[in-house]
């Protein structure tokens, strides 16, 4: 995730940024006057930190003890069932994606994506100090993913009520929302109906009846990735060059997938699309 690319594109000519780079990354001499003894400076700081944290924990525990719900029973699910706050982002994703995707594949992507961050970020600037200007792309990219996660958690905590329906703060949380106000439709059926395509399958592969609409959704899905990979390659060639072939492709795969998540959510919200792509084995 480089942003020198965007830096050199936008503001300073290349020479300057190179000189700056060398200046910034040159080994700094650390003399004894720049360091302090850990005892007592750091050790006492840590002690104070721990005392404060203990005090806060004790206070919270006394004010709000751990809850205990009714005895577990397999026949009645509490309504609504909310996981602890840190899993509500995941629970909210499950509304928009099938369990295999929201529950397994997307979390795995998030974890692998996080692990890969240091290996796809070739920018030597911004190491060990706060900066936004020297690494705009990586800050914006990471910030976007983080914000998505937090907004999903926020929605799960405060805006979901009975039957996992959406409740604004001014809605009565004790009244069930009407069901089935909106019908969700697969994208290929929307295409079939609006373009007047035939519903008859072109080919049948076992359980898989491939229709024209289905092929178009495949094209749209693969096209989304294709465009995502090519556009930066053509228009931000410097960006590509700095990353190199492997880094660029790995990074872009996760980046495009991340952008796909809110896109699918919006397709669901604004166009009532249930699945973008349907096969007998998986749907999303």
């Amino acid at each position, binding site marked *: 995730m480089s942003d020198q690319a965007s830096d050199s594109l936008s503001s300073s000519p290349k020479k300057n940024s190179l000189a700056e780079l060398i200046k910034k990354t040159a080994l700094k001499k650390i003399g004894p006057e720049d360091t302090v003894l850990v*005892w007592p400076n*750091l050790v006492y700081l840590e002690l104070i930190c721990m005392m404060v944290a203990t005090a806060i*924990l004790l206070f919270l525990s006394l004010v709000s003890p751990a809850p205990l719900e009714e005895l*577990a029973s397999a026949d009645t699910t509490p309504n609504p069932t909310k996981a602890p706050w840190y899993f509500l982002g995941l629970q909210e994703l499950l509304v928009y994606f099938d369990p*295999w995707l929201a529950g397994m594949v997307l979390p795995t992507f998030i974890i692998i994506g996080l692990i890969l961050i240091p290996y796809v970020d070739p920018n030597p600037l911004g190491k060990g100090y706060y900066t936004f200007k020297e690494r705009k792309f990586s800050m914006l990219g990471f910030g976007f993913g983080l914000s998505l996660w937090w907004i999903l958690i926020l929605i799960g905590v405060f805006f979901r009520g009975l039957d996992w329906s959406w409740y604004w703060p001014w809605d009565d949380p004790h009244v069930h929302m009407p069901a089935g106000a909106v019908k969700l439709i697969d994208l290929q059926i929307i295409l079939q109906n609006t373009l007047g395509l035939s519903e008859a399958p072109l080919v049948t592969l076992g359980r898989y009846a491939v229709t024209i609409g289905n092929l178009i959704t495949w094209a749209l899905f693969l096209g989304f990735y294709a465009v995502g990979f090519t556009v930066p390659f053509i228009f931000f060639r410097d960006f590509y060059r700095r990353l190199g072939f492997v880094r660029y492709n790995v990074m872009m795969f996760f980046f495009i997938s991340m952008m796909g998540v809110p896109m699918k959510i919006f397709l669901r919200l604004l166009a009532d699309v249930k699945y973008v792509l349907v096969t007998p084995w998986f749907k999303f």
Partner: protein
Amino acid sequence: MLKLLEQIRGIVNKTQVFKSIFRHGYPDTDGNRALVMFSNVILHLHPVRVQRGALKIKFTWCLGGLTFFFFIMLAITGVVLMFYYVPDTRRAYNDIRDLGTVIYFGSLFRAVHRWSAHAMVFSVWMHMTRVFMTGSYKPPREFNWVVGVILLVTTLVLSWTGYLLPWDQLALWAVTVGSKMAEATPFIGASGPFGPELGRNSGNDMAFALLGGTVVGQSALLRFYVLHCLALPLITALFIAVHFWRIRKDGFSGPL
């Protein structure tokens, strides 16, 4: 009065017992302050000297240290809670209720355990955000970021396994949902993509291995208990050790 205390300290510091435990004098001279970091196993997590910038609260926000502190807190309160808990579906719920009603400070220990868990998840996220913001994952510290991500995962799995133990409604349904997700894993879950094609069914898939059965019942409770109280804390502690070791070897990334 102060003088008297100092005299007592002087005598204590010279006794054979004190010298056998601590290999340094009272850390009021630079020499002893360095020696205390060398010779004390816990303080040895630190270097002798740090850059001035590493002390800035505004730089680290103490988040990594706090996460570790919450982990210690969880270990201590967790051991205390284990004295009164039996992982049996017929007993577990009542054991937890007893903690709140008939055991002195039982409710407090449980509350501290729970709040520490929330706090630990939060501080792990915040620590990660901070490390990203300061670019502290950049070479040569890439691998320590990876270890950090693993610690994030174990923290989340620890909390997930933890909340099955009270055997209340939240416990049962959170784990039911989680095990259904495992069942939906591609290739190794019975309802996941290509799972049935590869011969997975409810008797041999991922969720079955996780729960030790087809429903969230006794064997699932025992499995989660073992994972939560033994296996995962050990794994987490191991990775924390690696995490700290790498910080010591690679140094702080902080400013001067």
